[in-house]
């Protein structure tokens, strides 16, 4: 699936959007990485590298001409360091890595995200259109976790419905019209709930998964997720997009 294997480049930050104190978007220039397909990720390292630190895995959030975007949630040291980056700065990026979502030419696609799970679905939505009818349900714990979507779920803020995004998924699956496929990204518990609902409804579900990752290229076997067939799959090499049926949600 990745069009360029083993691609690594020092990319310039061309734009930075600070959404709130928890989230920001960086746009970086690189024509090769901008050919990423929805669902792929990059391994990003702020330059210049001084002390040892692992690269940060981030989904490709969007692309525009020869630039690509990452949407970042600040959770710890690495992402905080990234939050200090300014337009004009350089970042060392490996990618695009991993597989991607199934791109349907037509049909009805339901997108479901929670929190930072919003990141990979933006490019997916753009690529599914205009052939597909899409509906995007997004949920956040707080108003800061909300981004533009068709329906928002949050216990805070006036623009959102109360409750969980999975409540929205349940309703959408029950409504007439039907869905050909559901795409989801978010916290593990949310994805496990999505898997249960989609299995019940008999609708295929593709999920983008996260796991603590080191190499990003399939050699260290660190980013393991349990497979229904027993054993583990690697998020970086076998994913990050999986058919929900491949994943053992109970482990």
């Amino acid at each position: 699936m990745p069009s360029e294997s083993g691609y690594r480049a020092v990319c310039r930050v061309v734009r930075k959007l600070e959404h709130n104190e928890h989230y920001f978007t960086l746009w970086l220039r690189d024509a090769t990485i901008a050919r990423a397909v929805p669902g792929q990720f990059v391994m990003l390292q702020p330059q210049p590298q001084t002390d040892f630190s692992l690269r940060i895995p981030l989904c490709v959030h969007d692309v525009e001409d020869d630039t690509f975007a990452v949407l970042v949630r600040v959770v710890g040291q690495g992402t905080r360091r990234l939050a200090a980056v300014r337009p004009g700065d350089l970042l060392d990026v490996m990618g695009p890595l991993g597989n991607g979502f199934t791109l349907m030419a037509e049909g009805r696609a339901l997108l479901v995200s929670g929190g930072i799970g919003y990141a990979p679905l933006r490019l997916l939505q753009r690529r599914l259109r205009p052939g597909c009818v899409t509906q995007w349900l997004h949920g956040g714990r707080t108003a800061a976790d909300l981004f533009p979507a068709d329906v928002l779920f949050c216990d805070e803020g006036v623009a959102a419905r109360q409750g969980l995004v999975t409540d929205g998924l349940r309703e959408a699956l029950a409504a007439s019209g039907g869905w050909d496929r559901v795409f989801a990204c978010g916290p593990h518990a949310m994805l496990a709930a999505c898997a249960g609902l989609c299995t019940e409804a008999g609708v295929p579900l593709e999920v983008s998964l996260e796991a603590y990752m080191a190499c990003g290229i399939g050699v260290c076997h660190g980013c393991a997720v349990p497979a229904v067939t027993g054993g583990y799959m690697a998020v970086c090499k076998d994913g990050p997009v999986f058919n929900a049926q491949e994943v053992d949600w109970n482990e």
Partner: protein
Amino acid sequence: MNRLSTKLGRIELANPVTVASGTFGLESGDWYDLSRLGALVSKTITLEPRAGNQPPRLFETSGGLLNSIGLQNPGLEAFLRDELPLYAAVGPPLMVSFSAGTVDEFCRMVETMEKHEGIAGYEVNVSCPNVEREGMAFGTDAQVVYDLTRRLAALTQRELCVKLTPNVTDIVTIARAAQEGGATSLALINTLLGMAIDPETGHSRIARGVAGYSGPAIKPVAVACVWRVAQAVNIPILAMGGIAGWEDAVELIRAGACAVAVGTAAFVSPDLPVRVLDGLDAFLARKELTLAELVGTATF
């Protein structure tokens, strides 16, 4: 003359730079020309397939990485069938890292591998639990290391490299035992024991609790181990532990290593092994030295 050429026991290497078991795969070949390596080292293979440990398996700490992969591998038969031909096709000599739960099982694995072409040598991973000795790691008992090495040495004319764990009272005693048993080289160091705990919840960051600590943070430990072992044995040393640049390789070589392996730091820079190689080559040219002349030149 090739100033980088070196010998690891019975095998001639075009250069001293290789990769640390478990941190390398043929996927690395997407990032640099693997045929430039002095040797290839497989991940540790066991007789039966192993699914590996429950996640989380990784945690980053200051200057290093904790891992608890649990020797995930497809098992010897699948390795020999599916991966060995691909490794052998790369070119440089291949060292197969392997491990087992009993001495007999180690021997059975060598007997099987002896029937296959394309293997230049064995890296015996003795950091795994010995099921006959209440799960105590093989590599922590000099007598066990001696017995194991002696049994294996009788089965092969290939390179027999014993990879030592630093989690022992005196690594020199273990190194001597391996040499006396018939090891033709030593690899050191495997990961240090390490653990990290979430201060809020009290949970270990790694599902299995204690894990293996690697990366730049452990380099001084590796340098000291290599230095001490090099004083005590006369077989070549393949050194690893925290190499993040060619200068680190020079340190380990000056401490007494004839060859070096790049591990954890390649997760950040996937082409690090060849950059270490190029840097080392330039260093030797500048110093007008051959690699052999650099080995063991540390002073104090």
